[in-house]
């Protein structure tokens, strides 16, 4: 499934664990939350990522942060915005690793996803066929500056800071 952000398509180096597949000892794998303990207990050499449902209490994952390299948050549909708040919470709790939005998000949401702390979106093939990369790249920069103080996507300026700079320039 295509993984992308405003810089373009991202390399797919992670493998998602198949149902009932034994935990592999090598390679970077994404495991469902239900099998996370099992994966972390295994003598693995590769990196571990976890796929979270959007009903997760982010705090429950905090003790495991230093043993994880990737977190993906499920978006069952683009209208279900819980993932935005989960990303904000994970970042607030100190998660500095990779964070993906996983599911049927649309191009017009990329800047919001980035502002909330996601690095990339992983979307289904059929959606990518309809909304090709250029739609995502264009949508990410249609609004060049935002009012919010804290959350902004890369490349999106802060209106408050621009105002401050304009005031300073006027003396």
């Amino acid at each position, binding site marked *: 499934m295509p993984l992308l952000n405003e810089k373009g398509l991202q390399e797919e180096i992670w493998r998602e664990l198949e149902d009932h597949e034994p935990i592999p000892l090598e390679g970077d794998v994404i495991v469902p939350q239900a099998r996370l303990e099992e994966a972390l207990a295994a003598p693995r050499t590769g990196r571990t990522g976890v796929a979270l449902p959007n009903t997760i209490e982010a705090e429950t994952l905090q003790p495991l942060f230093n043993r994880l390299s990737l977190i993906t948050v499920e978006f069952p549909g683009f*209208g279900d*915005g819980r993932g935005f*708040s989960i990303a904000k919470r994970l970042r607030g709790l100190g998660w500095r690793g990779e964070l993906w939005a996983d599911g049927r998000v*649309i191009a017009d949401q990329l800047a919001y996803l980035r502002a909330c702390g996601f690095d990339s979106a992983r979307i289904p093939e059929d959606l990518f066929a309809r909304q090709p990369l250029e739609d995502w790249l264009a*949508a990410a920069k249609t*609004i*060049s500056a935002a009012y*919010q103080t804290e959350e902004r996507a890369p490349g999106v300026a802060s209106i*408050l800071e621009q105002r401050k700079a304009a005031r300073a320039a006027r003396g």
Partner: protein
Amino acid sequence: MYRYDEFDQRFVEERVAQFRDQARRRLSGALTEEEFRPLRLMNGLYLQLHAYMLRVAIPYGTLSSAQMRKLADISERHDRGYGHFTTRQNIQYNWIKLEETADILAELASVQMHAIQTSGNCIRNVTSDPFAGAAADEFEDPRPTGELIRQWSSLHPEFSFLPRKFKIAVTGSPNDRAAVKAHDIGLRMIRNEDGDLGYEVIVGGGLGRTPMIGKVIRGFLPKAELLPYLEAVMRVYNLHGRRDNKYKARIKILVHEMGEEPFRKEVEREYARLDVESLAAPAEEVERIQAYFAPPALENLPEESKAFERARTADPDFRIWAETNLHPHRAPGYTSVVISLKPVGGAPGDATAEQMRVAAEAADLWAFGELRVTHEQNLVLAHVKKDDLYPLYRKLAGAGLDSANRGLVTDIIACPGLDYCALATARSIPIAQRLTERFADPKRQRDIGPLSIKISGCINACGHHHIGHIGILGLDKAGAEFYQLTLGGDPTETAAIGERAGAGFSAEGVVDAIERLVDRYLEIREPSETFLQTYRRTGAESFKDALYAEAG
């Protein structure tokens, strides 16, 4: 009033370009209708029964005469020559073409207006007291808070795909004219014992299928902490609000199901996690916004105006109008003026392009070029010299804007109903029209006194029937419209949800039923008692008796 700087201006212009591109991608098939729907809704474009409806934001109900003229132009160029002012202090156009929408948004942007977040599951246009900055009983102007929230909530990355719509109202007066207890979040500006300014935060009010009065979840929130605290409330709602059933998705249901105390704790827990400093609006930004709302240059005038007194004696119609349609201003010699959009036989809240222009001209001549929209679907000129009232009145009268009925039985709130709306189960406007005809006699209206009738054409309650002194809810019963009555509702600081009176009435019978209620009130009221006071004193029984006696 607030004026855009270059950054606000660029923001709305980019938003127009974004919508243009979204509409293009809808046509190309890149966006499905399901995907396009929330995007157009968040630009105010809503599919109704016969056409698209465009809802334009009028933040906290304040607009300039130039903006009003633009609204008039748009109604002629893109609609049928009129617009509909709504209970959320916005304006709606009911006959819009999808392919013209981006151009309309561009025209709005040219006068510092937009339609951002007037629909959709996001934070909606903030509403407030229509007499803000003028009312004698106000101690703090709520509009700077409204503007701060407008900017913070615009295209908020985290809160644009909420479980359901989200409405915030602010009042700066102890007399609540913004119905804050009937909003998802209501903010009452208050001072604590140390004299510091802050907010009482009320959460979980709302009307719709499950009407509820909001609960105070923070008795005093320091002013500077507003945005971080709102963020905490919104995050708890976004994470925990129900998404399995759209009729149970508003925050009032979350507060109700969690319980008031657990909800409060959850918000405070979230709040404790936040970096309050970095989320709070910078002090210089708050001051910048505040400066736009400095009072206009009012003259030092005596309280009494000789010109006003003379005109009042000479013209009885003017005297009647002045008795009902003025609101006390804090400065001697000034008053606020309510321009009623409720003529006998009219559709409540509708104004023609010509009427909008006359209101704009009156604002330019006598009210510092500024207008307000009220949630009762009228207009207000906030700062008018009493000396100027008579020429103002004459001008309004020339355009049919002189109905002397503010707060009276014919000052009816009504949703668009089945004449326009795809959700409606019954018509609202014709009921309002027949009621105003029935109670047209000005003397009778004034004898009845303050009485608000509010009509919704379906259970979603856009006409606020739950908080009308008399509420009318239009339903469909086996293919025929019928109307349920509620009694004793109140949108103010003494907020109450109206109680169901009993079995409903047919479209033919409902006007007679209301008249029986009014007549009963006149029979049993004590001297100088309003309808609501009588209802509260006597209870529902005598009114129910009036409604249903003859049926028995």
